[in-house]
């Protein structure tokens, strides 16, 4: 593979992971905050708004991380793994 093609592939991977993986991760963070904080006495609507407010900043950070990371593959795995964990865990936290 030529150097140009390799860099294009890497950039596409970073963008796709930043956009899709980033959304999954931030949606997970929002859900965990929204479902988790009521266990510590916060009103449900308050925890949901707090999650939403932080969600976009988390999303932005993930995109920047994916673009800047020197090890994009490792970063992708971490993001996806954490996202799945949070997306599965949050509804459980809400029902406990």
């Amino acid at each position, binding site marked *: 593979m030529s150097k140009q093609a390799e860099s294009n592939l890497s950039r596409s991977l970073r963008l796709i992971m930043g956009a899709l993986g980033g959304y999954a991760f931030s949606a997970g963070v929002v859900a965990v905050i929204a479902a988790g904080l009521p266990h510590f006495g916060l009103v449900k609507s308050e925890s949901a708004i707090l999650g939403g407010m932080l969600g976009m900043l988390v999303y932005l950070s993930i995109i*920047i991380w994916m673009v800047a990371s020197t090890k994009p593959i490792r970063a992708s795995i971490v993001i996806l793994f954490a996202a799945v964990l949070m997306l599965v865990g949050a509804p459980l936290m809400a029902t406990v």
Partner: protein
Amino acid sequence: MGWLHTCFGITFSVILFAVFWTGTLTVFDKEIDQWMKPELRIPITDNVSLDEVVLPRLAELDLLPLSAVWIGMPRERVPVIRLHYKDANGKAHEEGLHPRTGEVLDLTDSDAGSEFFFRFHFMLHIPGILGYYIVGLSALAMMTLVVSGIFIHRKIFQEFFTFRPQKKTRRAVLDFHNLTSVVALPFHFIIPFSGLLILITSYFPWSMAVPFEGDIKQLDAKLAAYEKPVIKPANEPGDPVGTLDRYIDRANSIWRAQEGEGTSDPDWVAIFNVNDAKTYVVVERFFANHRVALGPDQVVFDPNNGEMIDQFKPLPIHAASNWLEGLHWIQFDHWPLRWLYFLAGLSGCIMIGSGLVFWIESRIKKAQPDATSVRVVRAISTASITGIILASVGFLIANRLIPKNINLDAIHRHELEIWTFFFIWALTFVHAVVREKSAWREQCFAIAIASVSAVALNWVTTGDHLLLTLGRSMWSIAIMDSVILVCAATALWSGLRLQRRLRESRNVAVSIEG
């Protein structure tokens, strides 16, 4: 980071420019309304009595049982009483009432600023929620662009004081890009962020609904406070509300007791459970005590004895979110701040536009200047910058030229105005494809001519010329006309400058060939 800035920049700058441009116009939406609906040009009235003005009108109407009636109090920027109600068939109506006589104003059918430009700003005139997502994605991209831009320009202070308009066009464009980005940097980050917060439940619908068993409507209902009825109807007919003024006085005295004299007045009064024995009144204001945080600050009154039964106050995190949303909505009365928003919005437009032009001009140097793709890309950038400005001025002209009582079967008058906007916008694209680089200059001249015509048409059709509006302190119209004239002067200046540049570069080419 550089490639991210380029990649997101070219993908989103066309949409971002349109959103920023219409957002900047929306800063003066009520002024645009007064310009486009001349019936709204009424002097401000103090001590309005809703009992004398609104209650007789409500008695004439056949209202939908159990529906809600919303009454907007007259304000400096909206000097009429706004009445929203549903008729017996369930059809929604909106009326403007004269604050002194109660006469129903025959308003020009126009979407003007607070409907057309405002809606375009967050949904791009796309029906449904697709527009929300496109604008939301662009807002996220903008935050990314701001962050990556800071990474690229680490020598940010040095660059801030660098502007070399006499240098090569490309260099000057980049300096302009850096200057406008840095001068309003916090604004460029907070505006997309707070914009996302306004529609946040649309962007994380699943996640935010997790604590509510997946039902986002429960959350929406909690946040919307008393926009929905809180007292169950008795389902038996009852007398209509006898007084509104007394409720307003009572709400005012409650707020003054809590916040002191001089606190903000109510913005809306609502009557719920119309025609029912349990009809009740809610008095609402957007802002407690002239704060930024966008309410809703509401007082609910008991239908039986007229006492206050509840006062809605947002909880702390909701209030923090409201503060961020409030600084995006700018519904507060603060003229210097409103002008700063307008200027920061314009600086955002310049930042986006100059970034796009810089990218295109550097690519064209490398590519074949005559290639079709270059033509199309350049035409897109021309149409998305000067084109949308020309279309907006065209929208104003169409409003003044289309007769007020025009009666067409197929299309409403306000739709005709909107179609004119999109038609002119499409024309500017075709023009840019045909005329290539000259299109910039020619569209600048077109904006100058169109702007002067818009001001002239306002004079001809309403008799309100600039000297008259300034003399009579009709600030809304005076501001509109002056800003449109400044727009004309700027466009003329830019056009002449571009013409000189073009002539110089031709002379250089001739001397090289010679």
